[in-house]
């Protein structure tokens, strides 16, 4: 049976309801929450601050350090608390997704720590995490050239769908399911995250990237609106 209808009734190019909020961790220098429907990520930022251990310091520029993790009850079957190989990989690609937006060259020997925690997962967690982290960095006042917005595009059977949910990720029939998380810089439009898991024709891929760009513009609008609403503290 072909994939003709999304399980939650959305149109193929319709995103879940997004939610964004800054200041969710008052202790941190900057923090934010970002949600795609019931996928909820929070991020906090500490720094720039001196980097320890010292041998990790870069005398030429500041360093961005990201950690991504999910809480044990964010998923159906309990995830063992603590680091995982998956989490480490996502931390790294998130770092690469965010770094080009920052302007921390003048902060030699320092680190900007970004902590991302997934409170509840229903696919697209790394994208929600990146969106939250970008907001948290801006909220912390870390110098930035532009923002970063991310969304996960899926190819379910032969249909391109925006903002996948778990049920769609697990779709087995027809051409199966392919998950393509993408992140774009808001001004230059450059791509800072691109992963793919599954199979997609090159022609489809071009469409997918175009769809990702459009969707990220919507994410960016919400991020911008959220930051504009921040009152001076």
């Amino acid at each position, binding site marked *: 049976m072909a994939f003709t209808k999304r399980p939650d009734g959305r149109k193929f190019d319709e995103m879940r309801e997004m939610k964004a909020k800054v200041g969710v961790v008052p*202790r941190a220098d900057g923090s934010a929450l970002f949600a795609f429907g019931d996928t909820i990520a929070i*991020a906090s930022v500490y720094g720039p601050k001196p980097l320890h251990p010292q041998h990790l310091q870069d005398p030429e520029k500041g360093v961005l350090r990201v950690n991504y993790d999910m*809480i*044990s*009850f964010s998923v159906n*079957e309990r995830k063992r608390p603590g680091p995982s190989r998956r989490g480490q990989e996502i931390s790294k690609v998130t770092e690469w997704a965010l770094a080009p937006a920052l302007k921390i060259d003048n902060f030699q020997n320092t680190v900007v720590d970004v*902590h991302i*925690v997934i409170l*509840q997962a229903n696919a697209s967690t790394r994208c929600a995490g990146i969106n939250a982290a970008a907001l948290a960095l801006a909220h912390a006042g870390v110098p930035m050239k532009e923002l970063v917005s991310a969304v996960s595009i899926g190819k379910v059977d032969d249909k391109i769908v925006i903002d996948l949910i778990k049920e769609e990720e697990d779709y087995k029939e027809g051409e199966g399911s392919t998950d393509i998380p993408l992140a774009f810089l808001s001004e230059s439009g450059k791509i800072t995250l691109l992963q793919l898991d599954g199979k997609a024709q090159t022609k489809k891929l071009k469409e997918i990237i175009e769809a990702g760009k459009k969707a990220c513009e919507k994410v960016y609008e919400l991020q911008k609106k959220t930051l504009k609403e921040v009152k001076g503290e």
Partner: protein
Amino acid sequence: MDVPNLTKKRIKDYLEAGKRFDGRKLLDHRNIEIEPCVSNNAEGSARVKMGDTEVIAGVKMGLGEPYPDHEDEGTMMTTMELLPLSSENFEYGPPRINAIETARIIDRGIRESGLIDFKKLCVKKGEKVWTVFIDLYSINDDGNLLDAGALAAITALLNAKIPKYDEKQEKVVFGELTTKKLPLTKDIPITFTFHKIGKAIILDPSREEEEASDTRLSIALSHGKKEIMVNAMQKGGEVPFSQEEIIKIIDAAEKKYKEIEKELFDKIEKNLKAKK
């Protein structure tokens, strides 16, 4: 960022005059917010705020083997993750003593109160029983994560539902919860951690106060069958307490329990109903 010694001294001087920076009395709590059912995928969950301190708790269940000396009883495990997201002072890596101790104190309060009826969590005697995982995460540390965590834990237990068990395949169907609640008694523990700063004894310290603290005493109490019972106690910190101080704290804890019990349980119940 560490609290400067000057601030610590100031806190002491204030307390000597019976005052706190935020205007509270010595044994006053900050505003307590309790929000049950904050997670779709957990069997039970809760978010608790004490002032700016925020903890979330989730209950997950799994099947495991019983302990050889309790063949017909389920088991429980409590963990606390002090997320680096919530404070600059926390680091990644296996839980350190601070997180372990906090989780163990909360665990003992719940276990010893008899809140969970473990006999009803037996699937097959000697072979298969439910394990209740209580996982706690700090979201913002502004002091007293322990008491906030304990409150979040019991709230999560109070709204937990047992997952579906497929008897033929002998495994848990995750993601499908039954309507069956976790078997609980009425003996719900509340934990109070008292801190000694100079000569003063205070409750619910802010982060600054916590860092100025010389020593602490945690007490978990529950209602028991007839009277209030102390279910767990733990002294932490190098500075000793005098006997009088300990007795004073125990009395204060019982008084506080009576004062706050109804208010807290009403709050939990009210917020639970609002979620349904």
